[in-house]
């Protein structure tokens, strides 16, 4: 087991290297350069000024030199300074936006699992019933409905007409004047819509997964055996079927680790949530190379790590796989 783990960890290094190389080249090949992009077509920006800005960012060096310099820093875990005009360390910018993204993703993931798994179980148990069809339509509607459209409708209804929920942002304008308890409530109220809407879109995947996996198990002979020896249905489902059916779900859990730090641009823009999606989008638009690379490296690392965790937890949960090795 340990050897396997080390081997996997070791192979992550060249993989990460390859990912960074490809990303670096692709980003630098897109037209437009940092700093000057906003100043494009601005009469006050003279040619000398342009050159000055380019050399400030080191863009006058050939690309392989730039990559080498970047790589030299990144192995020391130094993500460098942002090329955006705020020139802050990339790591600060990421740290500032990571918590809210993780909170929202985590909450919506919990919600997805809490709602999606029961739906899946229900649909498998009462397959082809009317309720099964209604639930299936419901989760697919969530999957298919464009987030921005749904979000705007709900904001208009719950925010503007009923005035129940705040429309956007994560804190009220007078946040600093609230008591600690009011602060928590304030943030929670701001989080209701974003979390629910982002969870709504994810229900389909997990509930379908759960359903098909449980159906698969229910067809097994040992389930028939369990029924035959007279166990009540609830015990059969809970003790025998569900345990096995949940195994593939663990894999999904592992694979959603990198998703935790990624945010959707459209979604975050609509709710004015200062999260990772917006940061990434704005960095791409401003050609802020160090920030883009920083986010990509972290994302790549988490993806590889998530895969590893999925594999390991699968082995831990399922004795067949553990012994097979």
């Amino acid at each position, binding site marked *: 087991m340990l050897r396997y783990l080390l081997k996997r960890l070791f192979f992550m290094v060249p993989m990460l290297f390859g990912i960074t190389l490809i990303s670096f080249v692709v980003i630098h090949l897109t037209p437009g350069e940092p700093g000057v992009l906003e100043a494009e077509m*601005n009469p006050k920006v*003279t040619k000398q000024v342009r050159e*000055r800005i380019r050399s400030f960012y080191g863009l006058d060096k050939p690309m392989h030199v730039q990559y080498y310099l970047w790589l030299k820093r990144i192995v020391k875990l130094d993500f460098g300074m942002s090329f955006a005009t705020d020139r*802050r360390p990339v790591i600060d910018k990421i740290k500032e936006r990571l918590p809210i993204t993780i909170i929202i993703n985590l909450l919506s993931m919990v919600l997805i699992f809490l709602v999606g798994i029961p739906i899946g179980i229900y649909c498998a148990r009462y397959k082809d019933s009317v309720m099964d069809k209604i639930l299936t339509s419901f989760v697919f509607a969530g999957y298919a409905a464009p987030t921005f459209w749904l979000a705007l409708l709900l904001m208009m209804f719950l925010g503007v007409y009923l005035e129940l929920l705040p429309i956007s*942002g994560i804190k009220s304008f007078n946040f*600093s004047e609230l008591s600690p308890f009011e602060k928590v409530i304030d943030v929670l109220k701001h989080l209701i819509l974003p979390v629910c809407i982002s969870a709504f879109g994810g229900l389909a995947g997990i509930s379908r997964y759960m359903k098909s996996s449980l159906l698969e198990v229910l067809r097994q002979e040992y389930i028939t055996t369990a029924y035959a020896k007279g166990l009540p249905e609830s015990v059969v489902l809970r003790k025998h079927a569900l345990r096995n059916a949940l195994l593939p779900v663990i894999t999904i859990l592992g694979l959603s680790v990198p998703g935790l730090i990624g945010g959707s641009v459209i979604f975050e823009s609509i709710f004015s949530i200062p999260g990772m999606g917006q940061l990434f989008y704005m960095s791409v638009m401003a050609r802020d190379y160090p920030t883009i690379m920083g986010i990509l490296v972290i994302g790549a690392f988490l993806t590889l790590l998530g895969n590893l965790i999925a594999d390991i937890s699968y082995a831990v949960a399922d004795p067949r796989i553990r012994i097979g090795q």
Partner: protein
Amino acid sequence: MPNFTLSFTFVRITEIKMPVKRLLIYALFIFLSISCSQREDVALYDNPGTPTYGDTIITASIGEPSNLIPILSTDSPSHDVASFVYNGLVKYDKNLNIVGDLAESWELSRSNLSIVFHLRKNVKWHDGKPFTAHDVMYTYRVTVDPKTPTAYAGDFLLVKEAKVLDDYTFKVTYGKPFAPALISWSTAILPRHLLEGRDITTSPLSRKPVGTGPYVFKEWIPGDRVVLLANEQYFEGKPYIERYIMRIIPDSATMFLELKHYSIDMMGLTPLQFVRQTDYPRFNREFNKFKYLSFSYTYIGYNLKHPFFKDKRVRQAISYAINKKEIIDGILLGQGVEATGPYKPDMWAYNKDVRRHEYNKEKAISLLYEAKFKKGSDGVLRRDGNPFEFTLLVNQGNDVRIKCAELVQKRLSEIGITVKIRVIEWASFINEFIDKRNFEAVILGWTIPNDPDIYDIWHSSKQGVKELNFISFENKEVDELLVKARHTLNREERKKYYFRIQEILAEEEPYTFLFVPYATLAIHKRFKGIEPSPSGLTHNFIKWYVPEGQRRYKINAAVSP
């Protein structure tokens, strides 16, 4: 509205079983008691009241400021915030005349080569230190320092010598008289005592600015908002509005919802929002709508190296064939005026008596026949067998321009010209098409500078890579006039030069000038003292006020920077 809430929930609750129902009702009560939605008092916003100190104005911005040291940023949110925190030596008043800001007065030397600024005494930085001429000197030095990555060094690089005469007198000397010189000193003056000897690019001031302006920086919650508080010691008097909050709302639809929810007080509107979507009693009861001519115009630029567009008759013909009024009425919903040249009608440099290309299809066709085009039996114009067709480039994300392109396409097809429209993402648009002169015609816009110097756009020497005369316009007379106007300080004389330039441009028609749009805004009615003017709205922001009975927000936090 509340009635609606209750009945709605009531219907739902009756359908649910008893214990669950009770729970839901509790939940609802808790929820309602928490959601302290601001009920607007039916205040008489029509009563102008008297100016008093207090209340908060909440504005919104699509983008987040990037850097609050203005010389280091090029985005408008940064400059909007910075304009409240810093002062320049001079500024524009509401009618676009130059008046003193940190400078009490100034005098020009007889040769017009140097300016001596007499600075205000007793001005304090927000941290309490006195403001002196050394701060001005520092600002100049750091701007021209080659190590500073600023986009605004251009004007200051023309300074031959800058000198501090005493603590409150500052002198600059130029190599040549330079008309925009004075207004170039409207740049934000930075605090020397906090910056000198340190690397400006990593200074904490870029996140926590310290200036001399009417508002003091309070806090910046990244991605969420910037908060400023009124400067008690401001040299023109403390601003009436106690607090300024700029919320960052990246989506314009969300921003509009927030406006309708009264959670922001001021927002720029699109023509559709201005004319239709805000035209209902409840909105009109709460908001005033303002408009003023914005400092920009939209145009079609022709690549003058193109064999067809070389001929000015062809360009004039296209201008005649395009119906500008239809563009303004149809796309801007009337919120704009026809552009006749590179200035807007309420500027002193604007010449209204230039040749206008009113919509006239016959004239367009006859001009094209003069230019040796012939209409074939298929209705297509041809010259020497080449059909008249061209590609009109538009940048992605600008709906108004894309719609303009479609109207132009339709109008030109009526006289036998085929127009293809290509929409391209901004960075490629500039790098692949404009910079490489790889285009036939484009729809673009320019910001109109307050000072009418347009040398960079029209002088024939400005055709290099990344320079702005990308259409390759060359006219000896315009070149001469531009240089003369630039080095003349007498306004009447300058005016003559710019009038002549506009006449030539209207005759040569290197651009088809389309329109100057109105800037349209909604501001909550409780704010009084707003005066729309040629320079916009915020020129007298510190005099805006909310009468006592109409205030909406209280400030509990002690006012301290």
